[in-house]
């Protein structure tokens, strides 16, 4: 009791100081630092719903993230212009085989850094820094050369950037990521969420960018650690979790058997995913452990917090 009052007062000062520092950095356009400070402040008031700064911190985080995206986009545009001579992009002959197109159908485009590729084909190189756009009705599977065993799939309308060997930026669409390696770590960003994914064993997961700019993540194989804003969640095969603007959603279980039968990410390509046998096994294991099947499916997130659940009618 003797120590609690001064401590509370000190924490109060600290939160305000950190918040102000975050705002200051945001004004200086140092968004990474600003986000770091603001998240720290948010962490301190996380369980204090009545804190007078809470709403302001939440708003500042949202604004900073938005500004960060715009800034990243603008800087990349500037960066591209600086390549070669003035506005010239590097020639596609110089494009390295950081990723290789393993499977493709429909039409997918590669933009930025090197010359435009308007229709990616089997065994085309895709260098880091590229932005890939998958057009409606199309699909592409890329495998990494710098880390054998890591692949990414996308179908239908999707757009993503291969930022670095350990970072993907997902702008829209749905993806299946998998790695046959141990000790994986990758950063996945969307408009409103920065997610660190790690797994000590081979893993497979699906990620979808939600309408609000967050992400929907479904574990397919392995124990996957997801870290966002300092909070970590582990997902197992069949677990679904949303990365909401400020937090993870609750973890849910979805039926793997239905998923593997209805997923275009898994079924649209000529060759099945390398882990399809293991996925079937996981679906069966889940079947053994299932206590209830609900007449409802998980949908999108359009707002800040609530995700959609669709109830389907009885036959």
């Amino acid at each position, binding site marked *: 009791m003797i120590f609690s009052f001064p401590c509370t007062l000190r924490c109060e000062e600290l939160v305000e100081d950190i918040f102000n520092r975050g705002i200051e950095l945001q004004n200086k356009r140092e968004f990474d630092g600003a986000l770091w400070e603001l998240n720290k402040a948010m962490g301190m008031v996380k369980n204090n719903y009545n804190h007078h700064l809470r709403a302001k911190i939440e708003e500042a985080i949202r604004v900073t993230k938005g500004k960060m995206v715009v800034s990243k986009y603008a800087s990349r545009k500037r960066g591209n212009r600086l390549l070669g001579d003035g506005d010239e992009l590097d020639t596609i002959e110089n494009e390295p085989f950081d990723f290789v197109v393993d499977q493709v159908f429909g039409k997918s485009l590669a933009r930025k850094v090197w010359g435009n590729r308007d229709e990616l084909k089997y065994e085309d190189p895709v260098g880091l820094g590229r932005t890939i756009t998958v057009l409606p009705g199309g699909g592409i599977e890329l495998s990494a050369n710098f880390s054998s065993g890591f692949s990414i799939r996308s179908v239908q309308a999707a757009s993503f950037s291969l930022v670095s060997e350990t970072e993907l930026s997902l702008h829209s669409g749905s993806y299946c990521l998998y790695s046959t390696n141990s000790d994986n770590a990758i950063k996945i960003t969307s408009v409103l969420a920065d997610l660190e994914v790690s797994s000590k064993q081979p893993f497979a997961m699906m990620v979808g960018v939600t309408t609000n700019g967050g992400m929907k993540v479904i574990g397919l194989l392995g124990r996957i650690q997801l870290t966002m804003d300092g909070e970590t969640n582990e997902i197992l095969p069949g677990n679904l979790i949303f990365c909401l603007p400020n937090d993870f959603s609750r973890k849910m279980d979805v039926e793997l058997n239905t998923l593997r039968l209805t997923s275009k990410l898994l079924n649209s390509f000529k060759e099945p995913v390398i882990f399809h046998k293991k996925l079937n096994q996981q679906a069966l294991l889940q079947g053994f452990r299932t206590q209830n099947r609900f007449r409802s*499916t998980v949908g999108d997130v359009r707002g800040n917090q609530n995700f959609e659940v*669709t109830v389907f009618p009885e036959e």
Partner: protein
Amino acid sequence: MILHARLFLLILVAHLLMSDKSMVIFAESPSNEPLPFLNADFFADSLSDAYTVEEEDPMGSQRLLQVRDSALSPSVSASTSYNYTSNPDKVENPTRRDGTTLNLSLTFNLGLGEYGLGDEVILAPALSFVQMRTFTDPLHDFGNEMTVYDLDTQIASLSFPFVLPNEFSLILSHSYVVPSTFRGRKEIISYSNTPGLAFSKNFILQNGDSINFTVGTSYTFSEGDTLEQQINDPVYFSFIEAVMQQNGSSPISDYPSNLQDSVTMSLSLTYSKALSETISLSPTLSYQSISFTEGANKSREDEIYNVGISASKIFAEWLTLSGLVNYSVKKTNDINTSEFDDFIGGITLGVNHSF
């Protein structure tokens, strides 16, 4: 005294009303605290009218499930069945026809987890204990004559089903069966240990129906009464022994305690049709060949042919009603054993609970 009691009641009622009111106020008071996560009952009532046409998600349809956390999966079930039999004595030329039986059973199952082996195989071992009581001729159509067939049966079994790719499965099992009498003094009739191996294939048809084909084999190690123990009269047994020895046989070697030791081969074909989400129909054909290996039964071979159909209706997750009709024929190469045919029909009501 009455006044005090009335006063007490008045205070009590007033207190209850006040506390009720305060509860209502508490429930109605809006909370300004934002929810840290979505409500636990988010798919309960409010979603029943939230049906919308879903856009196609490239990730696939994400149907919500409730999955058990624990590796162990205990469950109990109880059932009662009432059956008609056209041949209660199971003999070739029955003197008694149209009998009935009443069975009561209690089962405890314990799933011991599910384990992935390699990329494609799953092992799901399970333990099971069954206590069963059979009342023969419960309506006493034949007086008390049939009560000798009344018995208790206890079964303990352990199974190791391996779920293989392409709808195949291999099941290793062991069961321990103890039938005993419960009328008068409880006497154990025999013990038997039966290790078994079964291999099955499921064919899923396009209309959702399935056909299961199973082939299996097992060996029964039995332990029952010898002839001497059955007769339980030294003088009479000596007489029988002398008569048998004159005919060149011996009660000790012909009627050992493991007289029922046998190898069983079985084949079965089951068609499963779901008529609705709660009603299913299963016609079955099966064949069993039992080759006895000890004593007087050596070289005896029994064959049982069976054709039947069962239907079940699930009323609730915990309540099932099923009915069956079955016709079976038993053939044997042993002149001392009866061949017979039997028609059985009955209903079973079962309740179960999974923890």
